[in-house]
């Protein structure tokens, strides 16, 4: 697809398949039509029903305010697509340009967008995961089940994992006046994403709201009764807690298994792509017709030394969808890079937590505005003397200023005072727990000697 004529013909009569019919897929489809793509558009999704929004599932839905089925995404325009829903994709054949569905159907395409997202990491013991009262939260069915369980008035809820989702669920339990225990392997909640200083604040908030927070412990066993209902959890320190509901909030698994034999650079860490959302093949060469967007995409970010970063953020899905869609129907010279800074939010214990940038890309953190004890503040993150991220607690109106500091590589710590700067403003080490091992051992093997014959092959591990 090199000449302008070919591009015009493609925009008019081409075939685009979007695999993954959630937020990123829907927004990309709308953007494709906005860009003037009039060819055939096929939406493939493993869940039945229209695309829906997920963030409310761990918030408004669990409070009982909003029914789980009530989060269907509003449409910005008609997308005139063929929807193939309820059947997951099982493979991608790049030799003949077909998406293979698990029911045997083959869907041809000229260009494909992969936005298959992530799924919740299940409890590691299948029989325990199957107990009545053990939940994960990713789909609306999950949220509906958990909401019903919370509404039934459980004696205690155990939340396993104090990341953002786990902390939000704990917050809702307290709002509903349900006793809740939170178990976290790290020394504090949110510490993996935001570091030790913020982790301490988060721990403080949880305890102030009556959460039984247990950090530095691992849940080793979920024990059921004779009827197959959860009744107790065992910790690695020998202690136990009686609970009739457990929520497993241990993060997500990227849905890339179906790409195993596709020849794309896809693995547990996502699908590697360039900033234009074009997928890389196994050798790290950029492809022309395969694009990725959303939670599953792993893009380089120039601000962070071109490191490949995958983000499970709402805004990231939206922005990448726009960029991918634009690039799918544009010539090389008109392509856009995806250069937005990550923005993230979480609502818990009555506080609005927002972040901009990549907090894990930092060695120091300093509170620049407000008061930590009041849980109203902004903290800036720095890496080797420049600002790389910021986090606000109920201070979102200032965050845009920090975005600009990051984008302009402004010095860290920020040298100029603000009226609400804390008296004891001093950078402290950011202190993340050791690197999380996403995949153990090698994921690829390189073969060949001559530059013309050196190639990568995938080496899959048993997980």
């Amino acid at each position, binding site marked *: 697809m090199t000449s302008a004529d070919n591009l015009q013909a493609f925009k008019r009569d081409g075939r685009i398949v979007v695999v993954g019919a959630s937020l990123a897929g829907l927004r990309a489809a709308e953007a494709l039509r906005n860009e003037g793509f009039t060819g055939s558009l096929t939406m493939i999704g493993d869940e039945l029903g229209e695309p829906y929004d997920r963030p409310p599932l761990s918030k408004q839905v669990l409070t009982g305010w909003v029914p789980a089925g009530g989060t269907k995404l509003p449409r910005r325009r008609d997308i005139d697509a063929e929807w193939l829903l309820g059947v997951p994709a099982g493979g991608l054949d790049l030799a003949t340009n077909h998406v293979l569905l698990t029911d045997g159907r083959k869907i041809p395409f000229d260009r494909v967008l992969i936005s298959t997202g992530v799924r919740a990491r299940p409890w590691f013991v299948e029989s325990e995961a199957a107990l009545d009262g053990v939940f994960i939260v990713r789909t609306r069915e999950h949220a509906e089940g958990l909401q019903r369980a919370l509404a039934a008035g459980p004696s205690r809820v155990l939340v396993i994992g104090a990341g953002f989702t786990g902390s939000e669920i704990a917050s809702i339990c307290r709002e509903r006046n349900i006793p809740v225990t939170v178990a976290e392997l790290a020394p504090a909640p949110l510490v993996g994403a935001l570091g030790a200083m913020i982790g301490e604040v988060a721990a403080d908030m949880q305890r102030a709201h009556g959460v039984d927070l247990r950090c530095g412990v691992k849940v080793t066993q979920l024990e059921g009764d004779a009827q197959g209902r959860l009744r107790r959890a065992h910790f690695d320190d020998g202690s136990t807690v009686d609970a009739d509901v457990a929520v497993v909030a241990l993060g997500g698994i990227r849905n890339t298994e179906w790409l195993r034999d596709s020849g794309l650079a896809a693995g547990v860490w996502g699908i590697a792509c360039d900033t234009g959302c074009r997928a890389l093949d196994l050798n790290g060469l950029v492809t022309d017709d395969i694009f990725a967007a959303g939670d599953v995409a792993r893009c380089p970010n120039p601000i962070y030394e071109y490191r490949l970063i995958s983000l499970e953020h709402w805004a990231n899905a939206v922005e990448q969808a726009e960029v991918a869609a634009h690039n799918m129907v544009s010539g090389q010279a008109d392509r856009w890079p995806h250069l937005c800074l990550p923005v993230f939010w979480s609502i818990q214990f009555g506080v609005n937590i927002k972040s901009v940038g990549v907090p894990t890309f930092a060695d120091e953190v300093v509170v*620049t*505005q407000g008061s930590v004890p009041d849980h109203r503040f902004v903290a800036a993150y720095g890496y080797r003397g420049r600002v790389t991220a910021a986090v606000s607690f109920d201070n979102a109106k*200032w965050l845009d200023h920090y975005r*600009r500091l990051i984008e302009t590589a402004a010095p860290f710590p920020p040298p100029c005072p603000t009226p*609400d700067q804390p008296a004891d403003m001093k950078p402290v080490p950011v202190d993340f727990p050791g690197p999380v091992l996403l995949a153990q051992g090698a994921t690829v093997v390189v073969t060949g000697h001559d530059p013309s014959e050196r190639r990568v092959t995938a080496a899959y591990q048993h997980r």
Partner: protein
Amino acid sequence: MTTTETPDTLRRILDYSSRADPYPLYAELRKTPVAQQEDGSYVISTYRELADILHNPHLSSDSRNLSHPTAGAEEQTTPAFINLDPPEHDRLRRLAMRHFGPPHTPGLVTGMEGALTAAVSSLIDDFAGKEQIDIVDDFAYPFPVTVICHLLGVPREDEPRFHLWVNDLINSIDYNPKTDPKEKLDKGVQARKDLHQYLGGLLDQRHGRPGDDLLSRLANDDGPDGRMTDEEIVATANLLLIAGHETTVNLITNGMLTLLRHPQVLQRLCGEPDLVVPLVEELLRYEPPVHIIPWRAAYSDITVAGTVIPKGSRIMLMLASGSRDPNRFHDPDRFDPDRRDNQHLGFGSGIHLCFGGPLARRETQIALSELVRRLDRPRLVADPPPYRRSPVLRGPIHLHIEQGDG
């Protein structure tokens, strides 16, 4: 950055002769997004730069952070939150918001709809038999004043007294020691004193007497942040009285003027009542009630569009110019109620975003809807109408219209 032409442009903008149409001068001003003036102050006039600086934590609203504070009317013993920085600003605004809006009083504005509609209807009923109507005196002034008096708990019959004070006060906001008679400033200072004393007297009566009005609730309610001091309550009430008084009148009047200048939009509004919602947003962009934030202070050095504004500098923010910036808004001088992505600066932005914005919106939406519905072929008597002095809170002093066969 140049300093050669813009000082003159600013002078011409502030000059009364340009009040009816300052927009071409704003366009001139925008050629220099950050312009230093002869007196060392800075003027910012472009959208991006305004939006940025309104989110910049180094921009102070506290006149004590100016290196050369003028002995102007902005000097007060107890400033209201509009003239304070965090954390004091945040605390006082939170305390006031407890009784005005979410999260503690979310239904207040929607709960007032019936009263707003009734007040509007009654004023329009009084048009009957009049050959000429002054949209300002007969409608756009009395309506929001009634509303803010009711909300605050200020007796409506005292209006003639505080109307004079508020006028003197507003006139002194843009006091320029070089060109204005000292009397203008003195009157403003005296008016502020009188108004404070008046509100203080009302407040004294409210202590220990819980009631639904804002003064009573501020005087008696204790939240997690504690209670405002009497001085703080008076400063807050003073701010809300002036703002609720002097801005909505302009928004409604500018709205009627703009509709009469765009008869096809007026016609559409008759058949499409929902149009009033985006229309008022466009009005806030196209003919906003507050044109200028007369001063803010650089708390520390601030870099805007490559210009370093040194600590202590006085900064003037030309909000109405920003909302007409062609680099942000397509065809900005066109009044287009269908405009999308209308992120105007009509109510400012950042932590000082207009406190009463939601009320002002509903007042204006209801006022314009009812005017358009009930007036019979309204026509402007004079275009442009006569304007009030202030370049800051800009609007007609009278807007005479004829209707029917008159």
